């Protein structure tokens, strides 16, 4: 038996290749769109992974530190450390800001952490971890910084001593890790003009600048310029301990909110990126419909282009199933070519996206199945048209 579909594809391979290329790019866009969603979810997950924590302790009644702002005194961790089941507890600050790099600036999440404690970057791609307690930084490669470069954050220059990868905030902003004390200062520090303004404002307040009380103004100004707050305390529980059990007394007695990993994921994925996810899902649905429509039209047009041949085939006695099979196989072949091109294209252009695009194998497989189903369904239109062709048209008037 001869494979008519294969022969037709081989014969008009140029047309097929170009059609497949077009379809493939469309499929590539669809896969990328799915990848954008997966990337967002993955951004949220790596954020949690990278913090290396089992519990996030934040201000009471907040969804901090990522979804809402949260502020804790930086000595809270000491009382947490004393609780049973806690192996490590460390202060961490998060601050999303524009970090200056030469003439431009980079949007980044500045993380203040203590070396060796939860919150430190989990792995490096170059350089070393921070060893000085001030003015060193580890930056995500997405910020574009190189080893040895200076990062300007607020009023201080930080030397990049290490690079890391895939350390991003839930919004996809690359992270810059700096020592906690610097970060606390940076979070509060204003620019010089603002500080001078603030000082002048305080100095003109007669109740704060009383004659006859020397030193009062200076004391007030010093207290204004210091920050003893952090955003969260990351807790690592002892091996074999359930985070939920450790969290319960913190919630009850410390008047703080404690989230476990599962709850944090829920907050990040269900709450923080919910709207974006729906947006992308909408896009995916539309893209799938558009792809299906395009496949259907392509197959239909290709079939109409062969109407005479189909009439001849029918006239000389070809079975309908053979003709339907030919069209179906062509549709599936087109889908296969399109899928391969799409997958390759998506993989090659995904790294160029500013935010992380995660192409999951599972998505690719389900995408492949969807493409095949869509192609099969789309070919029914063409098959119906082909089967309706009157063999008599071959004979003519």
């Amino acid at each position, binding site marked *: 038996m001869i494979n008519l579909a294969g022969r037709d594809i081989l014969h008009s391979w140029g047309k097929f290749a170009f059609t497949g290329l077009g379809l493939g790019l469309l499929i590539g866009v669809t896969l990328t769109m799915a990848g954008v969603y997966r990337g967002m979810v993955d951004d949220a997950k790596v954020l949690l992974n990278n913090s290396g924590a089992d519990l996030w302790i934040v201000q009471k009644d907040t969804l901090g530190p990522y979804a809402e702002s949260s502020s804790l005194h930086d000595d809270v961790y000491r009382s947490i450390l004393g609780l049973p089941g806690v192996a490590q507890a460390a202060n961490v600050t998060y601050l999303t800001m524009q970090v200056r790099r030469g003439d431009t600036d980079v949007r980044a999440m500045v993380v203040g952490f203590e070396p060796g404690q939860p919150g430190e970057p989990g*792995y490096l*791609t*170059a350089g070393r971890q921070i*060893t000085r307690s*001030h003015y060193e930084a580890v930056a995500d490669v997405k910020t574009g910084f190189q080893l040895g470069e200076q990062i300007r954050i607020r009023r201080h220059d930080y030397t990049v001593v290490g690079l890391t*990868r895939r350390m991003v905030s839930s919004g996809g902003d690359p992270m810059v890790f700096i020592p906690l004390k610097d970060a606390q200062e940076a979070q509060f520090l204003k620019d010089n003009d603002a500080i001078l303004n603030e000082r002048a404002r305080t100095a003109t307040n007669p109740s704060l600048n009383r004659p006859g009380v020397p030193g009062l103004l200076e004391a007030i100004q010093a207290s204004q310029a210091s920050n003893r707050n952090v955003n969260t305390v990351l807790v690592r529980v002892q*091996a074999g301990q359930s985070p939920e059990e450790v969290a319960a007394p913190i919630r009850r007695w410390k008047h703080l909110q404690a989230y476990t990993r599962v709850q944090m994921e829920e907050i990040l994925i269900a709450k923080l990126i919910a709207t974006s996810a729906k947006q992308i899902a909408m896009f995916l649905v539309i893209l799938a419909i558009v792809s299906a429509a395009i496949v259907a039209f392509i197959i239909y047009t290709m079939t109409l282009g062969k109407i005479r041949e189909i009439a001849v085939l029918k006239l000389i006695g070809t079975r309908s199933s053979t003709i339907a099979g030919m069209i179906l196989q062509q549709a599936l072949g087109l889908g296969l070519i399109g899928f*391969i091109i799409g997958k390759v294209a998506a993989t*090659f252009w995904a790294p160029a996206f500013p935010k992380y695009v995660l192409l999951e194998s599972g998505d690719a497989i389900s995408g492949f199945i969807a493409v095949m189903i869509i192609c099969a369904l789309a070919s029914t239109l063409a098959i119906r048209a082909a089967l309706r062709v009157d063999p008599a048209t071959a004979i003519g008037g």
Partner: protein
Amino acid sequence: MNLAIFRSRSFGLIVLALGLLLAFAFVVLRAGPLAPTQVTVNPVKEGKLTPALFGIGTIEARRAYLIGPTTAGRVLRVLVDVGDTVKAGQLLAEMDPVDLDERIAALDASLARAGSTIAASDAQRRDAQARNQLAGMNVKRYQDLGEKRFVSSSAVEAKQQEAVSAQAGVSAAEANLAAARQDSLRLGAERDGLRQQRGNVRLLAPTDGIVTTRDAEPGSTVVAGQAVLKLIEPASLWVKTRFDQGRSAGLALGLPAEIALRSNPSRLLAGKVVRLDLVSDSVTEERIAQIAFDTLPTGISVGELAEVTLKLPTTQARFVVPNASLKRLNDQLGVWLYQEGKAKFVAVKTGQSSLDGQVEILDGLSGGEQVIVHSAKEISANSRLKIVESLAEAGK
């Protein structure tokens, strides 16, 4: 010829299909979950370790002087300005003495009057003494006359009473004189006190130094103890440095230090730890040490930020690994070892570390192992690994 065309087209088709399949295979193998994780490794070997401490400090003066009046008052004049070098004893500023001079004049006058009072009391005393002498002689004569019965005994008694009275008059006059003298003494002391105060409104430099601030201008009122000027001894400048408690092990007096000033970070200044505060800051969790310059640089400013690196003695470590290789897995600190394309986690005990990121390994390694330093993503025991020279190009 047709055959050749057909063949070449088939050939092209096959090449195209193969290319596509190869690209697909490449994509699946490189980008998929099957792709190996790129890592860099370092052999575990012995090495020298120069542990160092790093702290941030500000330049402060060891001895700073606040020059101000001892009593509330108004500033009359300020003779020096910020940056002026002054000598010990130099007049720096003067407070308004207000009525001090007048009060001294009044006391002078009172003192003069007290002198006159003394003179008057003295005269009175001499008069009383004269009277007393006369009365004494009269008593003697009347007693003789009385014994000879020339006068009545009552007349004698009257004369004796006169003599006692004259004696009392002398005592009173002497007491008056003493009082007048004491009064004069008191007034003299009061005047001296006022003179002292008058001297105190002159603010003098206690030592050689430089004026750092000028806090009050002529006409402004200051309370007792408030500074009009601040003075420092430039030779006593040092760096008050704060070291993180967690990384201050080995902090000791006499350690050599490298000081980088904010104004010129590339120039390292030599210094050493000269004082170690016994009390550390419990809020910021920092220890405080004072670092003196070996030779005082010129043009430094008080309050300038400085980075201080203290070099601890170099030690010979059995094994050192880069700190980037230390990972925490299930509550254990350790390193990932590269073993035939796979990763194996080994718990280690760490010792000292140096500022360039080398960490001493006390236990857990036996030397010669390949430690995974950098990786393109998080490593697990199931990761497929591929060793590369560096991951730097992945950063572009």
